[in-house]
């Protein structure tokens, strides 16, 4: 067996580095095609198995919701799987005629629900029952989940969608010989969506909230943490929605959300795989060009005011402790973003990173530590550390050590070897991300939707390669101050709840 390369030789094989270097991604032969209504298509033909990935991003997210309808962006995402005037129905006219009756009962339910503790529980139960009964009766005209059936029988893969703070995406892949189906089905669903089975889906979304937040200690802690860190900007609101608003949002509000944010000019579609670009262009025009443009996307005006002093919260839950520590940092497009990303890698990116070495390996005080920026990209965000202690070590102890390492970084520059490790990982990542049609389509579509430039995300990767030790120290000094910090700690309630003892 051959000897391994000695560690001292590591730096010698480092790849050459230059400011003009472009990643392989920026050189991809992507064809950008914009319809007169503003809808943007990105086509990329790739060799390989005859499959095609379709990823659409809409410039519509949780931040675009108005007061009282939190969770609607996400609920609407669910509704886009319910079909159209043609798909998912046996008789659209009859179905539509029932909507006002169903909505009226839902409105009465909401009116009673609003009374809070004063609400008549018997009346609430009766109205709920009536609502279900009416919606069930409307089902006589519904072909439930027909869109899913058509795609399933055609061999579609990865059919799903997700809603974020900034954008919402819809995606699936098809065998290449069935690519035209996407044009038929998705042009129909953004043209004529029908919000059928609306109230039962509202219940489904409420269970999604319970699954991800209310019965998940980590999910609950994160929701409370964001709410504490943001006083004004909508990044502080949960994308899944506040429970009372999920339970009362109306079909009309969801329709209004669609009308305002789902115009073709707010859509970016990436189509990657075994495609003929000319056919794609022709089909894009034929199926989407006559959809009228909608309102242009208006960025959120609200700016999070500067934080004046540390904010600390405790979240009580019957589970073992963990802590989130967040610092306000600028949006992803800001010139400091690359240095912050490198800082994250230096401190927590892998087993050789500074904080992992100290807290996990040397002291055995934490099971793991992560850092990263979020919850969105378009607006100023939080650089957040997540750390889970190993008893008897405490979250307070870990907090102190994280602050020490941040202070050390302000004083002592990262070594050339540390920076080179980060650069090598970026280089490998840049190649690995070209492996997969889906991953590429996702990145192209997201980059164009957020930054109006599909190359931007690739360029950001290149920018990371030019970050210097001085840049990292500068951003460490700029943002990692106590007064700019929010700390959320999960603690057990004084009286543990029944059941779940540990």
């Amino acid at each position: 067996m051959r000897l391994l390369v000695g560690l001292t030789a590591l730096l010698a094989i480092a790849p050459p580095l230059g400011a003009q270097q472009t990643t392989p991604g920026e050189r991809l032969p992507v064809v950008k095609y914009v319809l007169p209504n503003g809808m943007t298509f990105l086509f990329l033909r790739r060799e390989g198995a005859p499959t095609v990935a379709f990823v659409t991003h809409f410039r519509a997210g949780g931040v675009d919701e108005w007061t009282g309808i939190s969770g609607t962006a996400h609920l609407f995402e669910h509704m886009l799987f319910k079909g159209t005037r043609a798909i998912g129905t046996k008789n659209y006219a009859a179905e539509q005629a029932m909507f006002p009756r169903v909505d009226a009962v839902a409105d009465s339910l909401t009116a009673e629900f609003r009374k809070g503790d004063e609400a008549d529980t018997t009346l609430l139960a009766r109205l709920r029952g009536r609502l279900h009964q009416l919606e069930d009766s409307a089902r006589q005209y519904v072909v439930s989940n027909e869109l899913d059936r058509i795609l399933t029988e055609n061999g579609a893969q990865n059919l799903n969608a997700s809603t974020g703070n900034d954008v919402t995406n819809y995606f699936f892949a098809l065998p290449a010989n069935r690519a035209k189906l996407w044009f038929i089905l998705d042009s129909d669903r953004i043209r004529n969506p029908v919000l059928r089975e609306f109230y039962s889906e509202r219940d489904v979304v409420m269970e999604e909230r319970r699954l991800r937040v209310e019965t998940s200690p980590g999910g609950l802690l994160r929701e409370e943490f964001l709410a504490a860190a943001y006083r004004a900007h909508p990044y502080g609101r949960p994308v899944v929605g506040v429970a009372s608003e999920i339970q009362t949002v109306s079909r009309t509000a969801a329709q209004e959300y669609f009308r305002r944010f789902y115009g073709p000019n707010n859509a970016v579609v990436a189509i990657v795989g075994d495609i003929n670009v000319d056919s794609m262009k022709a089909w894009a025009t034929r199926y989407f060009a006559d959809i009228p443009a909608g309102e242009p996307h208006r960025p959120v005006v609200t700016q999070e005011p500067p934080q004046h002093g540390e904010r600390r919260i405790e979240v009580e839950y019957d589970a073992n402790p963990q802590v989130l520590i967040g610092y306000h940092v600028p949006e992803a497009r800001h010139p400091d973003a690359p240095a912050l990303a490198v800082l994250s890698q230096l401190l927590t990116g892998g087993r050789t990173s500074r904080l992992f070495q100290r807290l996990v390996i040397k002291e055995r005080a934490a099971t793991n530590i992560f850092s990263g920026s979020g919850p969105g990209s378009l607006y100023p965000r939080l650089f957040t550390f997540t750390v889970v202690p190993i008893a008897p070590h405490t979250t307070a102890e870990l907090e102190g050590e994280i602050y020490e390492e941040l202070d050390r970084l302000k004083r002592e520059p990262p070594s050339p070897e540390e920076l080179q490790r980060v650069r090598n990982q970026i280089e490998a990542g840049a190649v690995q991300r070209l492996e997969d049609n889906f991953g590429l389509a996702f990145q192209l579509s997201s980059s164009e939707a957020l930054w109006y430039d599909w190359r931007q995300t690739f360029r950001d990767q290149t920018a990371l390669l030019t970050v210097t030790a001085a840049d990292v120290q500068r951003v460490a000094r700029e943002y990692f101050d106590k007064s700019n910090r929010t700390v959320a700690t999960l603690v057990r309630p004084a009286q543990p709840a029944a059941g779940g003892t540990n």
Partner: protein
Amino acid sequence: MRAPITVAALIAVAVPLVAQQPTDPRAQMAALQIPPLHFTPPTPKRVTLSNGVAVYLLEDHSLPLLDVEIVSKVGVANLPDSLWGVGWQADNLMRTGGTTRLSPDSVDKLIEFYALTVFLSTGNETSTASFSGLSKYTDQLLDLGFDLMRNPRNDTSRVRLIAAQQGEQWRRRNDTPGSVLGRAWNQVLMGDHPLGRTQVTPQEIAGFAPERFRWTQQRIFCPDNLVLGVSGDFSEREMLARLERLFRGWGKCPPGLRPMPPVQFARGPRVVLVEKDVNQTNIRMGHAGGVRVGNTPDYFAAQVADFLLGGGGGFNSRLLQRVRSDSGFAYSVFSVWNADTKREDQFFAGAQVRAEKTVAAVRLMRDLVGSMATEPVTAQDVKLAQDNEVNSFVFQFQNAGEIVARQLGYAVDGLPANWFDLYLKGIQAVTPDQVTAVAKRYLHPDQMVILVVGKPAAFDKPLTEIGPVTRLPVDSIKR
């Protein structure tokens, strides 16, 4: 090297051409011409090394990446019972505990400096190692990967680290309802059989020691048990020479493993309640699965039945349609009908439902399991499952790594190299009657174990309406 695959012929689809109405999506779909797919998936080449180890090779130079996948035909269930906990963490120590010549820190530095991906996993019945990275670092990748497999140091400091982490995981075992459900289910269904273990106990952690880790690693990762796959940017001649060199001097597997003890799945009817103060109830119900993986009508019919009940069929499966879409009881609801080539596995249906619909949801789910035998699936349903499998076959061949990994899986499971072809044909041959027949034979809604994790005070009705309830205190879940 290239074997033509016959599935291409299966997917010719005849769609009637009707008058086109450009604005009506139904007319457009009806008019859709679906050209046949011309695709011959590449076939990995099988080579046997001088020590008898089989290697599957598939070159793909489209990107400068190398992917090496190694599967061992044995796992933790083959260890003496007293070593189960050690075996369960033996993978973690191989990755983090250093080698006889490299300290744990040096290993971490090499992996992260070269941005290599090194993954080791000791499973219950099989184990895997996978190494990947940029092909210009092939030397570093393979030298290190084989050093980790052959010469694990199990450094004392890292044994202590893993002991501390496992101890914390034990402390947190009841923090989420999902963790409680999974552990309780395994205990109720499989007792203390190794297949039902997913959590190391404090007693087992106390027994962690470098020499015990070494004993298990030497027996799980040794040439007689291994099958290799190499895909990506390499040349066959050089790679084979390199592999011969890497295996040189690595002798026979030492004795000491046992065949996995036979597993007995508990039989119901039983209703088991674990109390947890949550507003959403975790439900799982099922029993032994009955079928084995094989080229038999029963296996393929069971696959279709699972698809239509709550497996791959998505929103058009009975569980999703009724429990989620129609009733709004749950966001997540599904079925799993597992099988293995050597033994039967388990069948279950699961969901997370609002607490105040718990009993209604348990009833509905149990009825839907039963409906597979009493309310026959239609020809259209079966065709949905068949069309999905056939039309999506190209997704199984998207990159060289997946193609090779699939062949390794077949080799370890004792399936023929053309299993995928046989599988598609088997699925194609399933009839609605066969689906009903396997449901009648193997699904027994009246004999299921039904496990509920939640807060009974919030339930719609007493759980006793389902049957006599056994309470399982959360602290009596042994692992």
